[in-house]
């Protein structure tokens, strides 16, 4: 029997653990530290308070294995919150007795993540155990999955068997089970007599890693999808897509779910209106090109984005209603006397919006420098929670990926968001002659509860003016 697709995933999983083990191993085995833990009692490590009202997080990676010996402050787990991916260090050292969580699982503050043993075993053995898994990985590259500590064979086939014509051999009760679990019977190969698909085959096809385990054992499935938080409107039931072809159900990652919930909240709650404008950035572009080398001499690559951020910040000072949040409960507009600008960054995991603080008070070069560093941190998944919160207004630049414009959705609970598309050279009539000019399409989406169309138009033209007259921008005019 060929190794299954699932085995390949296991390999990735194992490899990842291997990498993580290598990380956690750095300086982890110190006899002196070990000694201290030999005396310690069994202790549990719970998810600490992450601050800012965050109550849950998703385990992205477990960086240690049961039996590992870790020192204090060694990274134990990588968790993803609404805002960032964070490595959680071990609050104490010792031997990991039991890991209570798995990647993909959502945990709440206070939930037990890892138990540490009282350290009764001889230190030398523990050290050996710690090294062992790496050797094991090298010698058993395709070992069966460990599911809740229980190793077992994975029966699924390497590639899904070809779809068959005619009825699939299975009892009516098995077919019902398949429907309940959303499994396309045609894609399941039957292990029963004459190729009959059994209940076990269906469960195996449905459960991924948790497959052949009986349903009750799968109950606390770590990667199980959770429904999105409701935003008032009850969505109608989805059609059974299986009737038109095979489908696959993929649980959303924590970040994807967060984005989905926030966007639904924003789009449902806020009456959006979008104002379009174009800025002639021919001069600004020339200015940037003239000064590229000078900037690079100071370790900064000038980009249009930093100028846009500055233009927005200056314009927000003139139009503070766009630098605000609405408190419908209190019937008040909360106007912020600081300008922290969010910049949407596309990452492999999804959209993340890091925040640059006090853009209005920082010189352009400083804004540019911070922007580069922040985007790099975000793309590497190294952004801290503080990098990602406190924004008052968001800029999303979709120009790099082409297109002629987009209508952004407000980053709740802000009041407005500016979309920037790709600048293009276009023919423009000036003084009766057609001249090529570099035009930058802008789309300002704002909360119509807070501002009206005329306000939006004025705010947008304030931004446009600053982009068209970089001298005004630099002089603070």
């Amino acid at each position, binding site marked *: 029997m060929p190794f299954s697709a699932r085995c390949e995933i296991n390999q990735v999983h194992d490899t990842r653990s291997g990498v993580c083990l290598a990380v956690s191993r750095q300086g982890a085995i110190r006899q002196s530290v070990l000694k201290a833990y030999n005396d310690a009692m069994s202790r549990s490590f719970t998810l600490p308070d992450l601050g800012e009202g965050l109550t849950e997080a998703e385990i992205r990676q477990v960086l240690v294995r049961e039996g590992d010996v870790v020192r204090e402050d060694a990274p134990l787990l990588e968790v993803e919150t609404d805002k960032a991916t964070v490595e959680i260090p071990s609050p104490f050292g010792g031997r990991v007795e039991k890991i209570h969580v798995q990647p993909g699982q959502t945990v709440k503050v206070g939930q037990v993540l890892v138990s540490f043993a009282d350290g009764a075993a001889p230190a030398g053995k523990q050290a050996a155990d710690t090294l062992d898994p790496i050797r094991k990985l090298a010698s058993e590259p395709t070992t069966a999955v460990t599911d809740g500590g229980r190793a077992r064979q994975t029966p699924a086939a390497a590639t899904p068997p070809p779809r068959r014509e005619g*009825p699939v*051999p*299975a*009892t*009516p009760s098995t*077919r*019902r089970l398949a*429907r*309940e679990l*959303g499994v396309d019977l045609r894609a399941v190969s039957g292990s*029963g*007599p*004459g*190729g*009959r698909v059994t209940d076990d085959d269906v469960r195996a096809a449905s459960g991924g890693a948790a497959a052949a385990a009986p349903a009750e054992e799968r109950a606390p499935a770590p990667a199980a999808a959770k429904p999105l938080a409701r935003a008032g409107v009850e969505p109608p*039931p989805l059609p*059974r897509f299986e*009737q038109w072809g095979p489908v696959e159900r993929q649980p959303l990652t924590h970040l994807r779910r967060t984005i989905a919930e926030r966007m639904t909240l924003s789009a449902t709650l806020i009456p959006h209106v979008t104002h379009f404008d174009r800025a002639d950035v021919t001069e600004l572009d020339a200015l940037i090109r003239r000064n590229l080398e000078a900037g690079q001499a100071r370790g900064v690559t000038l980009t249009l984005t930093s100028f846009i951020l500055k233009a927005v910040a200056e314009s927000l000072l003139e139009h503070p209603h766009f630098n605000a949040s609405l408190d419908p409960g209190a019937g008040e507009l909360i106007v912020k006397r600081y300008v922290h600008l969010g910049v949407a960054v596309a990452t492999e995991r999804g959209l993340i919006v890091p925040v640059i603080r006090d853009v209005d008070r920082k010189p352009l070069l400083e804004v540019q420098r911070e922007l580069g560093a922040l985007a790099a941190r975000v793309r590497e998944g190294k952004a801290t929670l503080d990098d990602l919160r406190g924004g008052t207004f968001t800029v999303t630049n979709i120009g790099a990926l082409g297109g002629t414009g987009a209508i952004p959705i407000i980053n709740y609970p802000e009041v407005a968001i500016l979309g920037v598309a790709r600048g293009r050279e276009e023919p423009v009539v000036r003084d009766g002659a057609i001249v090529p000019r570099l035009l930058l399409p802008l789309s300002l989406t704002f909360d119509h509860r807070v501002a009206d169309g005329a306000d939006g138009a004025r705010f947008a033209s304030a931004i446009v003016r600053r982009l068209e007259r970089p001298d005004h921008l630099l002089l603070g005019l």
Partner: protein
Amino acid sequence: MGDLVREVDVAVVGGGPGGYSAAFRCAELGLEAVVVDADKRLGGACLFEGCIPSKALLHVAAVLGEAERAKEFGVDFGEPRISLDPLRKWKNERVVGKLARGLASVARGKSVEVIGGRAVFEDSRSLRVEGDEPQKIRFKHAVVATGSTPSPLPGVELRSERVMDSTAALELPDVPARLLVIGGGYIGLELGQVYAALGSEVTLVEMLDGLLPGADRDLVQHLARRCERAFKSIRLSTRVTGLRDTGSVVEARLGDGETATFDRVLVAVGRRPRSQGLGLETTRARLTDRGFVEIDERGRTADPHVWAVGDVTGEPMLAHRAMRQGKVAAEAIAGRPAAFDNVVVPAVVFTDPEVAWCGLTEHQATAAGRAVKVAKFQWAASGRAATLGRSDGLTKLVVDPETGRVLGVGIVGPSAGELIAEGALAVETAMLAEDLALTIHTHPTLSETLMEAAETLLR
């Protein structure tokens, strides 16, 4: 009279097997369901003008046949005297009436209200009821279960009480001396045998070149042989091109001009869906060219609020298919992951001998170029058949040659309609022929023939 608007979860249009199954299952799942039926009673064509009354009359025919055959083993009851009034009364009251009362009491028990009248859709969420209890019903979901009605003879227009459809024939107006049966399908054969047993001289005309189109010929052969004896004649590949009521008899023109005279004519050329005049055009439901309501595997039409089950949705027009569809639709409406994914819808012709089949027929396999193994067991070798004096039977299995899986079962012989249940179970559960062979079947019974047929594959 002001418009009374009734709000319900599910409005079922039609009280036949599909309709009442849907309504009952809805009620079991906590949905409020009402049934709108012109008759203001549950049962539909199946109970009042189809399955049940025809089986009651076929039972009478079987008793007459058995009594006749008893002479073979020295028992002579003499010539039967048939009184139509008590026969009709027994059929209408003791059989049909009793079952109708039973259904009514089940409906009461499940709080399913039956509203008398004709339902006409006004849009995707409401319909009006015309008739004795006019009202408007707003529904979350509607189930169209209006069934089918006998097809008229194409090209022949004659309104005469001597020309009957199956509904009229089951009323048993009299026992005509000469009866012409048009159509060699299951309805023509069943009712032809009833009238022949009651004393009519039956002529059966079939347009195609064989009786029971669709069934395997080796199964039909046993039935055809018996019909040839019981009927005056069977005319295959023959069309009825004209009917004329002379005032006392019906003259029929057969094929190329030959005429024959009959006292009554039974037109049994099929059934057609009852999908017109329902206001379905006000919904998003769509009809096929043949007038069937298009549905998906759960029974939902192109309109998310309108569902359909039973004969109105297509072939085979059989009550047991409708009942399963009704339950599936109800469960789907209740949000359960139900689907009509049945592999087999068994078919039974309740003639003497009975013909029954399910799943893949040998004929279908041949037509599709699919390789199959066929295992046959002739009832001449069955002990039980011998004790019944009925060796005119055959049990056959259609089996997948690679896996040994039972793909289809066909049976002809007395009680084939009961025996086919095991075949349906075998095919539906994807059983192997080996499973049938290795299961102990009671001896001596006709059910052994399934085991015996399967055993021929293991040698």
